[in-house]
């Protein structure tokens, strides 16, 4: 794929620009395909600014250990150019690459002497302290600076102090003990900078109370100046100096210009179109066509249908029906009119939709070459089913459907074959696939991810992800009377972990909030409707307790293998939210559980 992409870069500038935008999207998915071609993205002097900026962006994305030298050298070149915006971007690019590769630090020390800007010095000293373990002569470097400590500007002094303390904590040697004493002394006695003094006192305090750092350390013999600054119990302040000074820094990640994966996938489905240039899904910028288009749709004019298409880009089903027809229309250019006639027929024999509530679309028609799959896990009479709907929007008849589930946290697998045999163009089929649990368990912490692969004889294998909602597993034997509820609670006394969450939105009471104010508990209203629904999903009511202004409702549920969930829903009179807490011997399931409860309440 790389050679054609590279060839596009010798086309006209405007085409180059569109290509670069698209390459940028491709690179985010598969950086390897074009990684060794990085040189083609080097900017030419006469490239217009929009091409240069895009090239820079791609170079940052393609930078790797192998080519970082070259890329940095190139960025350096750009940093001397005329265009201010571009220079700024180039300098930032250097920074962004630096975030990616902090691996080659040990050799910086030689350049320390050559620096004379205080900022540069301060940064260098910070680097020496931060990466002290990788720089062999870190102590010598710092020592030479400590000699001139009083003359250094304050920002260098601060960094010097921090670096020395860091170095000491990393390799506490004899020589360093002296060094640190010099540093601490200098920084408290010989300076009148309050920032520096304060920081020194804190370090001093930390070092003197840290048993690890000061085992044989003379600092103890000093009067810890902290005591007269903050007369508090040392034990309460006790914290390892290492924990504080060498605390893990937040990783500076470079997320700028990174798009979210689902958006990326959608953009990649729209390659070469405006959508890929704007980095927006089509419905974000295509406004609905004017009312005039409605009129033309009724006319015999071939444009009418087309117009409907442009207006309805966002609406999946209609688009899906039109797409194949359009695809057939475009290639044979002169048979244009014939193609349109076919096109006009399509809405007439619209596929009859199999009945049932709509299922979430997991494989949209535009990724599935016209095959659209919607599916959801469901429970019926204690049996778990995977409810699937296939819609064939392609031009060919599809047959030989097979389904396969990847290992998942609950070991969900198909209990029988898929009951879909043949799918004619524009037909749809709905089926219930019985499922079994604990068949192919995946190790690791529980996750709600369910990866599904569907195959047929005509198309490649389609993969899509579904979400396992825990409530489909709730079993009918989850009911617990009050006594057994308390019994279980005491039985699992230690094993039970209390997990709480606040369901942010007042899902269930949103219709009632307005009229029933504080006089009545929300739940007494909700109870009748919600309770039935929860019971239908095998979440059973056990007890209710009333506090001053809050109601607590207790429920129980059980999932296979007898894992109980004791649930507490709390509502506060006058406030719209619901708080949910659960006790379970398997606390790692709690996040999934909360998700399930939220879904149940939301319906």
């Amino acid at each position: 794929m790389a050679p054609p992409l590279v060839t596009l870069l010798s086309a006209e500038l405007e085409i180059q620009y569109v290509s670069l935008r698209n390459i940028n999207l491709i690179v985010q998915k598969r950086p390897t395909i074009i990684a060794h071609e990085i040189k083609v993205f080097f900017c030419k002097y006469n490239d217009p600014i929009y091409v240069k900026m895009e090239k820079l962006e791609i170079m940052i994305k393609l930078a790797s250990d192998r080519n970082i030298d070259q890329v940095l050298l190139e960025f350096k070149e750009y940093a001397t150019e005329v265009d201010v915006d571009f220079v700024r971007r180039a300098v930032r690019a250097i920074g962004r690459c630096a975030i990616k590769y902090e691996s080659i630090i040990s050799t910086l020390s030689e350049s320390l002497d050559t620096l004379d800007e205080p900022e540069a010095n301060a940064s260098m000293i910070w680097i020496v302290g931060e990466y002290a373990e990788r720089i062999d002569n870190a102590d010598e470097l710092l020592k030479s600076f400590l000699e001139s400590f009083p003359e250094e500007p304050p920002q260098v002094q601060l960094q010097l102090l921090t670096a020395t303390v860091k170095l000491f904590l990393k390799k506490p040697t004899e020589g360093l003990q002296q060094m640190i004493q010099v540093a601490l002394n200098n920084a408290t006695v010989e300076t009148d900078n309050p920032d520096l003094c304060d920081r020194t006192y804190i370090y001093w305090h930390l070092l003197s109370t840290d048993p690890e750092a000061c085992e044989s350390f003379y600092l103890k013999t000093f009067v810890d100046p902290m005591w007269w600054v903050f007369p508090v119990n040392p034990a309460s302040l006790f914290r390892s100096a290492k924990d504080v000074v060498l605390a893990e820094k937040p990783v500076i990640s470079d997320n700028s210009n990174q798009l979210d994966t689902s958006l990326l996938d959608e953009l990649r489905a729209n390659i070469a179109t405006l959508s890929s240039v704007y980095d927006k899904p089509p419905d974000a910028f295509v406004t609905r066509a004017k009312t005039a288009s409605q009129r033309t749709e009724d006319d015999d004019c071939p444009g009418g249908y087309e117009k409907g298409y442009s207006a309805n880009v966002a609406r999946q089903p209609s688009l899906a029906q039109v797409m194949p027809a359009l695809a057939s229309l475009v290639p044979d250019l002169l048979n244009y009119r014939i193609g349109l006639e076919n096109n006009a027929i399509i809405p007439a024999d619209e596929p009859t939709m199999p009945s049932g509530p709509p299922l979430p679309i997991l494989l949209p028609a535009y990724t599935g070459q016209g095959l659209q799959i919607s599916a959801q896990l469901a429970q019926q009479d204690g049996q778990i089913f995977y409810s699937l709907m296939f819609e064939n929007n392609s031009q060919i008849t599809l047959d030989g459907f097979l389904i396969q589930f990847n290992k998942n946290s609950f070991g969900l697998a198909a209990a029988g074959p898929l009951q879909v045999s043949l799918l004619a163009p524009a037909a749809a089929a709905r089926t219930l696939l019985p499922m079994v649990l604990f068949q192919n368990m995946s190790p690791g912490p529980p996750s709600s991810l369910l990866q599904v692969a569907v195959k047929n004889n005509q198309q490649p294998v389609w993969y899509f992800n579904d979400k396992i909602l825990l409530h489909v597993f709730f079993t009918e034997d989850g009911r617990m009377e009050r006594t057994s509820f308390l019994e279980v609670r005491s039985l699992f006394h230690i094993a039970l972990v209390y997990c709480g969450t606040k369901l942010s939105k007042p899902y269930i009471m949103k219709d009632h909030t307005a009229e029933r104010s504080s006089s009545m508990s929300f739940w007494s209203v909700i109870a009748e409707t919600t309770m039935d629904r929860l019971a239908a999903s095998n979440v059973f009511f056990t007890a209710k307790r009333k506090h001053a202004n809050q109601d607590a409702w207790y429920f129980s549920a059980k999932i296979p293998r007898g894992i109980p969930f004791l649930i507490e829903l709390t509502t506060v009179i006058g406030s719209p939210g619901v708080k949910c807490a659960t006790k379970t011997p398997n606390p790692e399931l709690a996040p999934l559980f909360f998700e399930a409860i939220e879904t149940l309440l939301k319906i």
Partner: protein
Amino acid sequence: MPVAASAIYFLNLRGDVLINRLYRDDVGGNMVDAFRMHIMQTKELGTCPVRQIGGCSFFYMRISNVYIVIVVSSNANVACAFKFVVEAVALFKSYFGGAFDEDAIRNNFVLIYELLDEIMDFGYPQNLSPEILKLYITQEGVRSPFSSKASNAQTAYPSDKPVPNATLQVTGAVGWRREGLVYKKNEVFLDIVESVNLLMSSKGWCWLWKLFLLMYALYNINHLVIAGSVLRCDVTGKILMKCFLSGMPDLKLGLNDKIGLEKESQLKSRPPKSGKTIELDDVTFHQCVNLTRFNSEKTVSFVPPDGEFELMKYRITEGVNLPFRVLPTIKELGRTRMEVNVKVKSVFGAKMFALGVVIKIPVPKQTAKTSFQVTSGRAKYQAAIDCLVWKIRKFPGQTEPTLSAEVELISTMAEKKSWTRPPIQMEFQVPMFTASGLRVRFLKVWEKSGYNTVEWVRYITKAGSYEIRC
């Protein structure tokens, strides 16, 4: 497939609409005002060729003194739209005989409208091949008296001939060629035109400010800064053909490309011939080339369209023969004087020569006086582009002329910032030389009647973007 355009406008530099055509009614007729207001009259112009204003998106391109603007309101295919514009301009040029500018448009309104109707239908691009369109739109463009191109009125189709059936032409098995052509003399002209793109790095350390020193110290890459190395280098080539052949000939073209040669020696079970073979990175063919045969036998076989067409395009990055080496030394002597020495070495055969060599050596804006010494050609200072322009009309191979110049600068207190040193740029044409080393090994012509043909092959290498940083 998404549409490419809802409307197309041709504007002059002032923003007056020269000509326009609406293909779909989802954009208003006054949209071009938005373009004029929000793009042409602002600094936005030239910052990005794709813009959204309100519900509409604008794609624009500047060709000489004309802006071509495409307006859409749906999620259009931008790449296709730009390609359409490029092809349309090529088509117009072939009708007008060379130039495409405001005057050419004004002189050819009727023709352009006719063409615009033909080449795009309801926002979808149609056939843009000049050779085919010239069969049906037989109007000739009005040539500007200043147009230098010689008239190519001697077309294969005198207008008194019956116009063939358009549908048959495009939908037939060989859509690009008409049956029953007769020429007295059967000739094929083959031009291999290559353009070399080069980017050479600077020779040594440039001035750096502190941050860079720091960064470079961090990454320890001082050792990499070596005397001018090739940063990137590639050749984009095309094979242009002009066919004047009778009947339905079948042509087969053999090149010295690696895959083709290997395949051939495999088929004939003969060891591959020694000699230079080249590796084509990416090849694009004209629609007439039989791709199944290319995939199986790796030979380029085709039934050519009549007249002029581009048979294939290719790109090469490995083993490029650079025709010229440029060795610049630019010394800044204090703040008011500069010494420029440039040596250009031609590294092609001594019997060959390059034509129209131009070397542009940038100098600072505040240049006051220049003095030159050149061993060949002529040099002068062009203040408009801040360059020393050195021209050598005829540049033989294996020679190395030099330019040495002294530049005096006005010392300005304001311009404290160091001069950024743009790259040296070069233009040239080297006939009978291919930078890629590509050669035509054979061009065979078969026709039922078995006539004899005369084949002419030409090679030429031009400078694409030939930049040497200094």
